[in-house]
């Protein structure tokens, strides 16, 4: 092989390589753009804001006192659910919500790191003590969903399973008339 041949083949190799690198870069830029588009246009994104709370005073005052936990129908027809996780259960252990309704889940932890995951949906958030987690959700199907803790929270972690009961809209409104905070614990 002459020196010129070597030089020529090196150029061919470099050209093919450049082409492949360009394709790779285009793929990556496309992925980032798609994520940005879906985030801005469809507002699907992880929790955007940071809010803090003191886990050692949750039971005394503020948003997460026991009497305020559960589901509440807001004036605009939306529903807000407040919950806490602690070793090794959720309060309320059974969350009741209406179908086809925008729901805001606000939750935090009273002790260690926990997580909320609702099976069969993409509702999935960490509960980190000291911080408030917020998730927007909407269920399109009534029924029971399992809600396990998805983060290791010490020796009882495997027993930490909650439930979500999605019920008919009118039924939920009927139950909400009495005021207070709704849950399906014991049902």
């Amino acid at each position, binding site marked *: 092989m002459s020196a010129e041949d070597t030089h020529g083949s090196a150029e061919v190799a470099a050209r093919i390589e450049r082409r492949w690198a360009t394709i790779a870069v285009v793929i990556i830029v496309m992925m980032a753009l798609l994520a940005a588009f879906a985030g801005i246009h469809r507002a699907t994104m992880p929790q955007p804001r940071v809010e*803090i709370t003191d*886990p050692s005073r949750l039971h005394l005052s503020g948003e997460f006192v026991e009497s305020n936990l559960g589901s509440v129908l807001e004036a605009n027809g939306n529903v807000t659910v407040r919950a806490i996780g602690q070793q090794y259960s959720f309060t309320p252990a059974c969350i009741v919500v209406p179908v086809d309704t925008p729901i805001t889940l606000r939750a935090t932890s009273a002790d260690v790191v926990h997580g909320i995951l609702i099976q069969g949906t993409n509702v999935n*958030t960490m509960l980190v003590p000291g911080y408030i987690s917020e998730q927007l959700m909407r269920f399109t199907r009534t029924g029971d969903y399992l809600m396990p803790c998805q983060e290791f929270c010490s020796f009882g972690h495997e027993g930490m399973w909650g439930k979500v009961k999605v019920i008919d809209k009118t039924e939920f409104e009927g139950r909400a008339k009495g005021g207070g905070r709704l849950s399906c614990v014991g049902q």
Partner: protein
Amino acid sequence: MLVNRKLILAHFWLAFAVFGIALTLGAWQMFIRSPIGTWLSNPELYYRSLTAHGTVMGYVFPTLVAMGFGYAISESALQQRLVGVRWAWAGFWLIVAGSIMAVIPIALGRASVLYTFYPPLIGNVFYYLGVVLVVVGSWFWVALMSINLRVWRKAHPGAPVPLAMFANVAGSYLWAWTAVGAALELLLQIIPVAAGLKSTIDAGLARVFFSWTLHAIVYFWLMPTYIAYYTIVPRAIGGRVYSDSMARISFILFLVVAMPIGMHHTFADPQVGAGFKFIHSAFTALVALPTLLTVFTICASVEIAARLRGGRGMFGWIRALPWDNPMMLALAFSFVMLGFGGAGGLINMSYQLDASIHNTQWITGHFHLIFGGAIVIMYFAIAYDLWPHLTGRELIDVRLMRTQLWLWFVGMIVTTFPWHWVGILGMPRRMAYFDFGDPAIAPQSLSVTLSAIGGFVLLASGIIFIVILARGMRAPQAEAGPYRFALAVHEPKTVPVALNTHALWVALMIALTLTNYGYPILTLALTEGTSVPAVYVGAQ
């Protein structure tokens, strides 16, 4: 020229010994939480085992492989006796001491916090100190790699650094810097609490520190595998590296962009805002680039080998490859697993899709496929390739090696594919048992059983691997000749300074880490009222 063979063998043997123990624990865990095992009366035993499995597989095993392989590369690629052998042994013994110190509290059930620590859960202080010792021991190696390269440069001014050593040193710098995140978490936050000096801790800040380590550590695990792709495989199958400079660019990209992306592990966390989550997501997409480049270069290098062996046609050359060569087999398996694992990884780092699988069994399946599969199968291949040069004895049983690699590949697929599937169904991670009697969970029992069977196939493969190496220590003596690395099609006579040194890229790595982590860490550290009471494990 491999002079310090004992040092290298000590690293490999310790690595594979602890790997064997952790693998056995892993198989037991798969079994005990599956429907074919009976429920544990004490679930705490499961978390002890899980902590040991993760700590060994995450911190001890790959670090020792990278170190042993690194010393071997330094001596054979630079053709230079290792400088600082005493320090290398000191680093090794620190790792031994650290591992023992960490494993005792784990075995006693005093540190069941998993290898990811999870404060405000706090275990026995000696567990954390042991992990710190392991990391400090590995930093000796980082320093030695840098020093050895410097000594070589002095003797060869301006010469291109051999690719294997260039990549090896890049990997060591990546490790040095990525370990800083967990080190800060341990030294500033966890150890003062574990030692009883403080009683509160900011769990959110700790998670951010840990994410700094948690992602780039994967690329540190990956480095020996990629070095093998580029510098061993082409030589072992009779080919050449397609492009030396593309290889260097890939390793540089890993060094620079593997670091500032860890927050994709905190997408679901409440302590990080949307902006930095998005930035880290975009940067994570960028880290796919060196892998895409590598896939191209290695496939092209393999094709060169096939055509040199008389392969023809668009795809016909694939048949001409030396499929009976364990290195070829390992590479093919590694690439298949890298393909599936990489595709899963793109889902995990996605700003939107992550929520569907975050902290489910999908994630466990994902990193077992990438690390246990694509990466570790090449550790096996590296050991097979190096062994005759380290022991001065031949590894004769090539057939058994092929069986071992096949079993590992099949076992890994059987374990991880159902694992991914139950993750999509929403099965959470790190649970000592599942109530398969619940009608909502019952459909997952078949998948979990399959995974457990895969776990035993992996265990069988691991045992065969250790048997092959042990038999290699007693085989008849045979001089293997000098250990060589693959040559490029166009061997570089000169290399641009940017592709021959690391300083610029290390500076860029640190700068990007500061821009991507500085602000979130600073705001969290300065926010008052985020420290929460520690919860001591074993105190309940």
